[in-house]
């Protein structure tokens, strides 16, 4: 026990870890909220596609010596719009089209990197994440984005539920469903931009998908699933970051592993007949 407390005390004595904690908790919270809708609407590939586009964008902006976020934010918002269109319009080929966009942007990023800077640590960090990546500016950005996500999510919660559960009914009774789909996609893009450099482009989408899928094993009302996802996501983030510090493992991968463990636990609980 004292070992754990010592570990935590040491952890919080580093300002870069405190920054990473702040950004991480906010990103984990927001992505869990958005994830419930994305998973239920079968849009989880959008999150995956966005993170790959994010890697391509970061790689290009790095090789051009541009500020990564200034390039990434507009490109990601555009990508969110395109990916949403693709998955809405052609239901059958949507997932294939998104896979095409993801792997293409990853490939473009890798080519650009190998032609310019070469595969250095920065590139590796973009792919697998780094706890050192968070600056003071990132903290401000993540607080702004998180505040935006939380306010908009709470205010549109009932409408988001309606659009997620039954888009046709929602539209038939006068809700502008397209607006809420776009809102979800844009907010997801923003959350991915903020969280990508810490979690890694290849792993950030797990923050969106895991908590929602895990909560759905056991909880059976929308509100409970949303609340459980949010709590679970933050808890998994904390455990993951402590694990990463204790074992010197990459932070993104550690968090994903903890999420996987939580999923298995909930899955077992469901098999044992535990429902709430």
């Amino acid at each position, binding site marked *: 026990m004292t070992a754990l407390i010592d570990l935590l005390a040491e952890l919080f004595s580093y300002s870069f870890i405190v920054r990473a904690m702040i950004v991480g908790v906010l990103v984990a919270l927001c992505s869990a909220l958005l994830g419930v809708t994305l998973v*239920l*609407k*079968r849009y989880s590939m959008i999150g995956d596609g966005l993170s790959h586009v994010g890697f391509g964008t970061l790689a290009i902006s790095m090789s051009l010596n541009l500020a990564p976020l200034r390039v990434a934010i507009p490109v990601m918002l555009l990508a969110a719009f395109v990916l949403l269109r693709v998955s809405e319009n052609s239901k059958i080929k949507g997932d294939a089209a998104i896979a095409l966009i993801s792997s293409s942007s990853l490939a473009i990023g890798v080519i650009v990197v190998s032609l310019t800077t070469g595969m250095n640590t920065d590139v590796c960090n973009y792919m697998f994440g780094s706890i050192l990546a968070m600056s003071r500016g990132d903290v401000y950005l993540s607080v702004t984005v998180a505040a935006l996500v939380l306010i908009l999510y*709470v*205010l*549109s*919660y*009932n*409408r988001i*539920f*309606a659009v997620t*559960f*039954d888009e*046709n*009914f*929602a*539209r*038939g*009774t*006068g*809700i502008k469903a397209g607006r809420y789909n776009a809102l979800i996609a844009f907010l997801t893009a923003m959350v991915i931009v903020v969280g990508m450099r810490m979690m890694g482009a290849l792993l950030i989408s797990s923050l969106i998908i895991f908590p929602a899928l895990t909560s*759905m094993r056991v*909880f*059976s*009302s*929308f*509100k*409970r*699933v949303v609340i459980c996802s949010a709590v679970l996501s933050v808890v998994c983030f904390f455990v993951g970051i402590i694990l990463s510090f204790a074992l010197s493992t990459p932070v993104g991968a550690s968090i994903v592993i903890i999420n996987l463990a939580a999923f298995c636990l909930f899955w077992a609980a469901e098999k044992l007949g535990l*429902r709430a």
Partner: protein
Amino acid sequence: MLTCRDVSLSYGGRTVVENVSFSVERGDYFCVVGENGSGKTTLMKGILGLLPLSGGRIEFQGVKRTEIGYLPQQTVVQRDFPASVREVVLSGRLNRCGLLPFYTRRDRACANDNLERLGISSEAGKSYRDLSGGQQQRVLLARALCAADKLLMLDEPVAGLDPVMASELYALLEKLNRDGMTLVVISHDLKSAVSYGKKILHMRRGALFCGSTDDYAKTDLYRFMSGMGGDGA
């Protein structure tokens, strides 16, 4: 209450509904029948504004777009959706909320009334995905009633239900109609349409028949389609 004039709709570049005209009066039990692919659902989506019209006009009299209840066909997404019955039924009230982000006490009371009306109050806390097909359909109907004051549009309300549940649902609809609700019901079950409906629109891209149920029952079209003799049987 609802008038369609020469309405045409296309879907995926193909004309699915062509020059259909009819009107629904207050208190009608209006059945739209036809084979699969005859454009029934597309027509209903056109009326609800979910699909753009490629021709013609639709006019509502004495009812606003936000006062129509709609019972769509179930989607794959819904079958294992983690939502409580109350959450689903309440979402029918969203069209009354205007700019308000949350439900009022009146919305909750209305949801409770409709849960009771359909005999599913005891299920309110249960999860939608744990219910039987018949009960799920009742939940969706309760949601539609929360949205509807005067006009209810139902797309294949008994699809996937066993005969007992289907006749229970028909009895419910008849009661609603007697209480003053105007119904537009899509069905491919001709016999029940004829026995419950007041007016029939028989579609095959265009309107093959539109008029009162009694007249429809006398046509060769009905005898042929329902397999009760006539030219084809």
